[in-house]
């Protein structure tokens, strides 16, 4: 298992290095620069523009800038935002728990509903339930997040008044963040009603963000189960007289889970992408919105640092998924 882990890690390291290069070059290839944006319609003289670019170190050849950046990174320094003047790592760590909390809840919803829906659809192939699940999954997958979010807000918050419109907790509650996870912090605050307020604020954004992964998981589970259910060993298990629950739950599901776990791992990247829109609609203070703002402001250090940290997290999650394969199916780690 350790060798298997090492092999995977060796693949991850050059990828990480590649990401530093991509993140660095990406933001600099975008037209415009932070100094020009800072000046706005008012503009500034060419001399002042050159002076400010030089002060920020953006006048040097790109390779030199990259070298300086790598040196900073080696020292654990992700740079300082040129807009807010705060260290990028500090901004990221302050906002990241909000995105994780939202993404985890979205993924829980997706798995909790997606897996059983896919399984039942597979075992009842061709039934009305199967068709309904697949139609709903296709609709969910095609739904633009922005429109879906607004629709839910208007219906559940505006018309029914069941959930709050946006934010993470009611403004009535005020406590300093301890972990950054609102569900935990609201409990730690000891303020009556804070936890339920945090939960009620989480429902709609988690549903919106979880919709696409839910659809994907349901479809993937269904197709994986259908494939496994037609295998010889399942027929053998049935012939041995095992009950349907045992055949599906123990024999079929275990093998069907491999592609499903792959999809769940890949959905982490999708969740981060979806978080950008979900966070904007629900005024959710996470890294998605922060990244978009940083790109629009051409805040080079923030974009570089943010992309790198997000990529690192996605890579770690995928590494964990790879390790999980090995645990679920030992054949994989031996043949890989």
């Amino acid at each position: 298992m350790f060798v298997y882990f090492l092999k995977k890690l060796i693949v991850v390291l050059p990828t990480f290095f590649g990401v530093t290069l991509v993140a660095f070059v990406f933001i600099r290839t975008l037209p415009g620069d932070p100094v020009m944006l800072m000046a706005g319609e008012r503009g500034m003289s060419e001399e002042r523009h050159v002076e400010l670019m030089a002060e920020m170190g953006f006048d040097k050849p790109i390779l030199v800038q990259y070298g300086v950046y790598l040196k900073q990174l080696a020292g654990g320094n992700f740079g300082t935002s040129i807009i807010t003047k705060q260290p990028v790592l500090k901004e990221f760590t302050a906002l990241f728990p909000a995105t994780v909390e939202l993404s985890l809840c979205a993924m829980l919803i997706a798995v909790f509903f997606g897996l059983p829906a896919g399984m039942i659809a597979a075992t009842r192939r061709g039934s009305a339930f199967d068709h309904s699940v697949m139609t709903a999954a296709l609709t969910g997958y095609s739904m633009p997040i922005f429109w879906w979010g607004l629709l839910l807000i208007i219906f559940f918050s505006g018309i029914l008044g069941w959930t709050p419109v946006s934010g993470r907790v009611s403004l009535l509650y005020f406590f300093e963040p301890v972990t950054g996870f609102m569900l935990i912090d609201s409990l730690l605050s000891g303020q009556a009603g804070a936890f339920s307020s945090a939960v009620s604020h989480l429902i709609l954004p988690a549903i919106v963000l979880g919709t696409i992964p839910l659809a994907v998981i349901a479809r993937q589970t269904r197709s994986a189960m259908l494939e496994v259910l037609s295998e010889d060993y399942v027929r053998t298990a049935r012939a041995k007289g095992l009950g349907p629950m045992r055949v599906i739950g123990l024999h079929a599901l275990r093998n069907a889970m491999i592609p499903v776990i792959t999809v769940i791992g890949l959905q982490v990247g999708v969740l981060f992408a979806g978080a950008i829109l979900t966070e904007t609609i629900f005024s959710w203070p996470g890294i998605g919105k922060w990244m978009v703002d940083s790109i629009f402001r051409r805040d080079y250090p923030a974009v570089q640092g943010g992309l790198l940290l997000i990529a690192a997290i996605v890579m770690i999650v995928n590494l964990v998924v790879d390790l999980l394969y090995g645990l679920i199916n030992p054949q994989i780690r031996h043949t890989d």
Partner: protein
Amino acid sequence: MRKPKNLIAAFCGATLLLASMQAMAAPKTLVFCSEGSPEGFNPVFYTAGTTFDASSRAIFDKLSAFKRGTTEIEPGLAEKWDISPDGLEYTFHLRKGVKFHTTPYFTPTRDFNADDVVFTFMRQFDKNHPYHKVGGGKYEYFNSNSMPDLIKNIVKVDDYTVKFVLSRPEAPMIAHLAMDFASIFSAEYADKMMKAGTPDKFDFEPIGTGPFQYVAYQKDAVIRYQAHPNYWRGKAAIDNLVFAITPDPSVRYQKLKAGECHVMPYPNPADLEAMAKDPAITLMKKEGLNVGYLAYNTSIAPFDNVKVRKALNMAINKQAILDAVYQGAGKIAKNPFPPTIWSYNDDVVDDPYDPAAAKKALTDAGVKDLKMKIWAMPVQRPYNPNARRMAEMIQSDFAQVGVTVEIVSYEWAEYLKRSKEKDRDGAVLLGWTADIPDPDNFLNVLLSCDAVGNANRAQWCYKPFDDLVKKAKVVSDISERTKLYKEAQVIFKEQAPWATIANSIVFQPVRKEVVDFRIDPFGGNVFYGVDLK
């Protein structure tokens, strides 16, 4: 039987009394659904209105101020000022007994005085000032108002008198000092932070003399303030002010409807009708201090010919643009600044919409089969809510007079950069919102010879106009300035470096329980003086 009834009545009475007492004692919290996160809390580094709302307009005061909801200047931290006859010395007499905020991170030991004024401006002005480089040392608002060239020295005369010595007379000087970059800071707090080795904290944990003091900021989520109990104008009517950061305008509207916030800026034009009908909401509106225009490049043929520019101006159907692009939230502009700015010349006659006359004028000017570019901004601005649509409409108008238009656009920073190039190909859609209610802020900044190759997108340098504007800048007599600016507007219209399109109208929905909210003509959100029912 009577006893329990009495008891219940007494209990109910006591409960009601308690409830009403609690209601009376309950702090008043006003929630503002702001459109974005502030870049920081020190306004001297930034130029965005969102940042000013959260910093200078809530936390700080300036030497002079704009009377709430108007463009009228009134005394701020300076009780009065004297201007020397040559217009080169401004002596400010400071207000006594003004308290800085007392917060968990700073307790002032003295009142506001001249040291604070000197510190505030010298930090931005003097490159050797110990605080100049703190926070990056980029003071673009201060710089773009030509303050480094204008200010010669700032002298503390005594504890409550400060003298600004200028290198040239500057008529709008008092208005400049009411701007956000002129927010007054505590020199004592700055010293304390420097001695503690944490000068950066000075900009992140603000201390001012303003109506609200900073409590906490959760990035991209909430900013909390409380009323400054010792505010020199008197404590604010509301006890707490909360900014709930809500970037999406449709969501802001839903929050307003649900009572989750009391005031919201920048409503969606599509929501205005529903807002006007909503019994819980008052939809306020006011003419904005802005102008949207199309600037020709007057340094390139055939746009260097005034007859061509005038002909093209006659080809634009402004009313159709107003209906389609501004959806009623605007007025046709005929001068280079809006009617709400003093010295506006209403006698100027706009170029009529007359495609036939335009076509003839182009032929008379010897222009045939003209091909040109129109630049459409990639962003939405109060002065131009949809530049692409506007460009398409002008394209169609010009096609009627035989001019073929190609619409081009660039990413915003690139657009700003390329559009100021002297040899730029094409006419540019852009606009301007006033920083100060002074014609100089439009005519000098956007149309003077000095601004060619920069904010003067028409690259228009016309001496008779430039002389008038330069003269008006140094004359202190308001009637004389008015005369000069009125004359300048006539020349502008004759020479037509721009096709002036529209002055927009600003809408601001507030909940009915909000008392005495006033729309800020500069596009800001000011909560001192606002109450809740």
